[in-house]
């Protein structure tokens, strides 16, 4: 069999696996939702590409030619950042599983390069638009234009493969992936921080001034731009080709290392016997008594050991605080008495619940996967099981609110005990509604989730996302209404009355839905278990 046939077979098997899974999975909306989301996303980038195809004819291509090195630099940055953010998203192939077959590393590397083109598809759309625009404007040599674009794409593809494989191996290290991703996501806040903070603006200005000295023409993006506009001499061409060669070697080396070094499943090497954490955990859960205490302990441990939970948990009190406090009026005017500022911790807490939604509320059995069937042969009622899962969620929600309060206080932004107290009360009431919705969705639309994957990829993403963004605000509307009413009215008695009504309503709703969700889980147990034992196919990382 030729490597061409093998590449075709590898791609086909994965496409078929994904197709069958999407087709048969009722949860998540299946093919239609996935196709619609893809059309929206790539349609957006395609529209930008089209714009670039039209602009040179409208305004002339000279201005774009001048801006080309900068545009290429942006494209290169985006292209290299995307694989890091989407490292474990969707249906990326796990090449290590193909080592059992007589497929050469070079063949697998070819597939890997194809995938890296795929992860930069947005940028390819823009580049295609730019190329078409320049080509139709007619001010450049078509061969130079095409060569410049092709070399630029090759370079990005190889560097992307190198970075991705290197970072993927880094991510196999315990805890490192969360740290890297939190830092990366916080980095994305830079533009917003620049708008709000004068100090940061000054730092950025200094950095930009210093970067003037960097020889942009020596960067691959600058060299490729020179080729495109026909200004590149032999020296520049050799430099660019050499860079591509080095990038290719680097990519192959990193890829080879990734597929030959088998990473073991994440495992803790800490002592299991009687750690302080264990003692604290037992103290926290002891008041409930078994079996609920045992279930809560199991949940708290399992969640904490799942990177896919830890990441949004960390993001809640890092990204959440830094993203929202400026908007709520702190960095700009710390003394501001704007009403949103008074409830900042409350709003950030509710926002952090949104981040935690997929793992803490909407898919509570996802990490259990096939093991969820054990719940049906333990002599424990399903109401108690759901209650225990909810108590574990409350434990982490409480921690989250406290961390948000403490972090906000550290940065001198906010942090009165009154604000934290309000956040705890409002978050507590909000939890009643979120758990009510979450219990039902968790038993009705369970989806197997890999706790090692840090993204929300996988089937069922569509419905779950829709539920998250539509049901969450809806579920939280009663408590938000109380907060708004309290701010608008000075009547303490009316506020307390509102809080009482919303709390009572939440408790009633929770009790009713808990019983109902447990009944549904028991009634649909065959479907429930069958959904949780599904995976994404022989090559997918899920």
């Amino acid at each position: 069999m030729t490597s061409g046939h093998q590449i075709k077979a590898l791609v086909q098997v994965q496409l078929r696996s994904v197709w069958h899974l999407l087709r048969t999975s009722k949860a998540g909306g299946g093919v239609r939702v996935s196709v619609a989301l893809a059309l929206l996303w790539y349609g957006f980038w395609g529209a930008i590409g089209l714009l670039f195809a039209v602009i040179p004819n409208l305004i002339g291509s000279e201005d774009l030619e001048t801006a080309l090195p900068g545009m290429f630099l942006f494209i290169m940055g985006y292209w290299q950042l995307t694989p890091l953010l989407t490292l474990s998203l969707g249906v990326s192939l796990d090449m290590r599983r193909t080592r059992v077959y007589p497929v050469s590393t070079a063949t697998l590397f070819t597939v890997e390069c194809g995938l890296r083109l795929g992860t930069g598809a947005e940028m390819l759309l823009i580049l295609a638009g730019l190329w078409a625009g320049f080509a139709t404007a007619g001010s450049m040599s078509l061969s130079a234009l095409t060569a410049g674009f092709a070399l630029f794409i090759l370079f990005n593809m190889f560097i992307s493969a190198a970075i991705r494989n290197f970072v993927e191996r880094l991510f196999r290290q315990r805890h490192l992936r969360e740290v890297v991703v939190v830092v990366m996501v916080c980095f994305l806040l830079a533009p917003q921080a620049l708008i709000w903070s004068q100090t940061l603006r000054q730092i950025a200005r200094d950095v930009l001034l210093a970067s003037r000295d960097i020889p942009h023409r020596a960067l691959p993006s600058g060299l490729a731009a020179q080729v495109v506009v026909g200004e590149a001499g032999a020296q520049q061409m050799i430099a660019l080709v050499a860079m591509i060669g080095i990038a290719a070697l680097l990519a192959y080396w990193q890829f080879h290392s990734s597929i030959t070094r088998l990473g073991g499943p994440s495992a803790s090497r800490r002592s299991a016997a009687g750690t302080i954490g264990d003692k604290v955990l037992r103290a926290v859960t002891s008041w409930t008594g078994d079996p609920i205490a045992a279930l809560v302990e199991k949940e708290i441990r399992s969640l904490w050991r799942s990177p896919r939970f830890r990441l949004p948990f960390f993001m809640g009190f890092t990204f959440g605080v830094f993203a929202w406090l400026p908007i709520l009026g702190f960095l700009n005017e710390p003394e501001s008495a704007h009403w949103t500022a008074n409830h900042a911790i409350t709003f950030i807490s509710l926002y952090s619940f949104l981040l935690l939604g997929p793992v803490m509320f909407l898919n509570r059995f996802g990490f259990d996967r096939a093991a969820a069937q054990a719940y049906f042969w333990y002599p424990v009622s399903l109401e108690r099981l759901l209650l225990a899962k909810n108590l574990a969620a409350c434990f982490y929600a409480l921690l989250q609110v406290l961390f948000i309060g403490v972090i906000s206080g550290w940065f001198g932004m906010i942090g009165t005990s009154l604000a934290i107290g309000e956040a705890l009360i409002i978050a507590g009431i909000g939890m009643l509604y979120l758990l009510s919705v979450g219990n039902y969705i968790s038993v009705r639309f369970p989806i197997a989730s890999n706790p090692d994957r840090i993204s929300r990829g996988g089937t069922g993403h569509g419905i779950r996302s829709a539920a998250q963004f539509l049901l969450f605000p809806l579920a939280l509307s009663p408590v938000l209404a109380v907060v708004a009413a309290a701010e608008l009215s000075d009547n303490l008695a009316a506020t307390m009355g509102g809080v009482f009504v919303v709390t009572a309503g939440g408790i009633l709703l929770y009790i009713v839905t808990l019983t109902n969700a447990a009944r549904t889980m028991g009634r649909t147990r065959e479907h429930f278990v069958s959904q949780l034992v599904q995976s994404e196919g022989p090559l997918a990382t899920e």
Partner: protein
Amino acid sequence: MLPSSATNGQPTDPSSEAIRIESLSKRFGETVALDGLSLSVPSGSFFGFLGPNGAGKTTTIQNLTGLLEADTGKVEVFGLPIPEQAHAVKQAIGVVPDESVLFDRLRGLEFLEFVGRMYGLEGAMALSRGRELMELFELDTETSTLIAGYSKGMRKRLALAAALIHRPQLFLLDEPFEGVDPVGARLMKDILVQQVERGATVFLTSHVLEVVERLCDRVAIIDHGRVVVEGSIAELSTVEETLEDLFVRLVGGGREALQLDWL
């Protein structure tokens, strides 16, 4: 009420039935998994439940554990009907499923303690028994490793340890030796034999007929969701025909291997 002997670890009456299944049927869409299956498993027996792939063995066990609900038919464990009395029955059974149904993010000892507490053991006792079982199954060197890091054989040993922790009177074991090395398998077999000696019932599925022949005192062979033969090993395995011969004759369909030109 469950017979007290079934929950307090005392030997059950050998003349009674641990499992009684009558005309059990279960369909999954167009597929008939169980087609009027009837079976009786005496208390205190080591019962082998055999059949080719897709014969309905796992579906039967899933009906016994309450995971599946039959379309028609009757299932009783220690005289208690399932699903009506499922909660009481669950207390008396220990399950080793065909897949590794373990909570990956726990350590071995944490898992055993968790399962013990699920079956009503006090925390300290569950922990103490868990430690002893970890040692018995030679998993005590892995106390700090998450189950996700266990090999297939270790997972099977841990699953059996979990099934033992509450000292049940009935074990439902689906391919318990699959993927286990010979030393580990011997250990597991010895423990199961001890359980039968104390009066517990073992209901075992396995594709390894030699194992079944050596361990079990009674056997049922099923095919297409029906029992095709049931009896003691002494009755079914003779000098002229071993259990394997009988199995192939009954469920092999007399089909000869196809000859492929290129093979």
